[in-house]
């Protein structure tokens, strides 16, 4: 990875879309050269050829040229449009996580990254991921803005208090990579750095089993839902339940009281827990109390993960990666996600 013995001039490429960003960069360098080299050459040529030969000479007056003006308006326009379109395509790729992504939850906090795998392992300022698998990070923060930035993967997104943002990548090359906080977040901003370990899938499985840590987010959520917060008393129990039905809810469109619809995504669920009265679903009374201040960001992640798991078809299929390793003595969360809710 990083080699301090020589001056590095180009960053490593370690994700599937890194080459696209680099290609775009190359294209822009090409565009810059194609436009600036002639301008610079013209500046030098004119400066020499038309240098002052006689004091106070009166050169021929030239007012302008409609043809030239049109040309150098239209051509840059089409060039900049090509930059816009290619930029947009790369952007689309960077921010559209594939459906089969393995999910990891990220909470930023002054001044550390707290990460949790869907299998339960927790990490601080370190992230272990397998090479060659799509990984989606669902991110938020406990305090101020941060920005999750892995230069080698060419991806970055701010984490915003009060909502979720997402980053995904598919790491190509095993190795160690920098993880930076890129949005200024106060005193120890430059200390909010970490390391991403991209591992061979086999090594990753070993790492996972060696670090069988804690409950999975779904289990955390289930526990909160059924026991600690008592959500189940309203949101479970069949037709006479007072709260909205949550099974199959995720990523569907819900109709709200007072008209309007919303897509029940992560932010919607989060908001419904913290500000229930703001988005009441048609057919229900606004009786749910707010849970603001009672749940931490990580517990919220758990609740969201659990509610997502109640919709096995709509949610991305996070179960897949875990299911691939039947040989391991499965840590508690191994067969998590999509399966358990069916039992409910």
């Amino acid at each position, binding site marked *: 990875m990083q080699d301090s013995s020589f001056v590095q001039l180009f960053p490593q490429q370690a994700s599937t879309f890194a080459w696209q960003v680099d290609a775009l960069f190359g294209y822009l360098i090409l565009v810059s050269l194609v436009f600036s080299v002639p301008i610079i050459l013209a500046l030098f040529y004119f400066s020499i050829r038309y240098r002052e030969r006689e004091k106070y000479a009166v050169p021929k007056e030239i007012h302008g040229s409609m043809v030239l003006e049109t040309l150098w308006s239209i051509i840059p326009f089409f060039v900049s449009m090509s930059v816009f379109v290619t930029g947009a395509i790369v952007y689309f790729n960077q921010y559209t996580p594939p459906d089969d992504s393995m999910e990891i939850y990220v909470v930023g906090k002054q001044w550390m990254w707290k990460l949790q795998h869907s299998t339960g392992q927790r990490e601080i300022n370190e992230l272990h991921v397998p090479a060659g698998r799509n990984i989606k990070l669902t991110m938020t923060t406990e305090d101020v803005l941060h920005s999750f930035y892995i230069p080698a993967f060419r991806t970055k997104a701010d984490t915003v208090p009060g909502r979720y943002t997402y980053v995904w990548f598919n790491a190509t090359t095993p190795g160690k990579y920098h993880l930076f906080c890129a949005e200024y977040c106060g005193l120890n901003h430059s200390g909010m750095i970490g390391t991403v370990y991209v591992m061979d899938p086999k090594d990753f499985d070993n790492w996972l089993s060696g670090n069988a840590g804690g409950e999975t987010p779904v289990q955390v959520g289930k526990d909160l839902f059924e026991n600690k917060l008592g959500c189940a008393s309203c949101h479970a129990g069949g037709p006479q339940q007072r709260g909205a039905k949550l099974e199959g809810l995720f990523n569907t469109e819900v109709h709200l009281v*007072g008209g309007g619809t919303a897509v029940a995504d992560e932010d919607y669920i989060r908001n419904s827990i913290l500000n229930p009265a703001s988005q009441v679903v048609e057919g229900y009374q606004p009786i749910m109390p707010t849970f603001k201040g009672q749940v931490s960001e990580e517990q919220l992640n758990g609740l969201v993960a659990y509610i997502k798991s109640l919709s096995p078809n709509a949610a991305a299929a996070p179960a897949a990666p875990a299911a691939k390793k039947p040989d391991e003595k499965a840590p508690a969360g191994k067969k998590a996600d999509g399966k358990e809710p069916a039992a409910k």
Partner: protein
Amino acid sequence: MAEQTTEHHNPHVEVPNEHIGIPGYLGVFAVLVLGTILTYYVALMDLDWIFPGANTLVALGIAFTKMTVVGLFFMHVRWSPRLVWMSAVGAFFWLTIMFAYTMQDYLTRGTGFFGH
């Protein structure tokens, strides 16, 4: 052309501008106070039965009316040359730009556009 208009109106503006007199100004003041009181009472009512967010719209409507009255009478735009009218309208247009382009973010968040 525009400045000719300015010059044309200048002597008119120089005249002490009691365009609507003290009673007129008091009337405008009354409108403003009434608007404020109205804003308060509307804020206490739930107007969501009309459509969601109706409260905000009504409050903004009252505020806009008050603003227009202040601009027209207190700030004398009513009696000003066209260039001043243009500037006043231009400023509101700019405000609209700010609101519109900010709202294009808010209204398209979480609509499922591009995956989320």
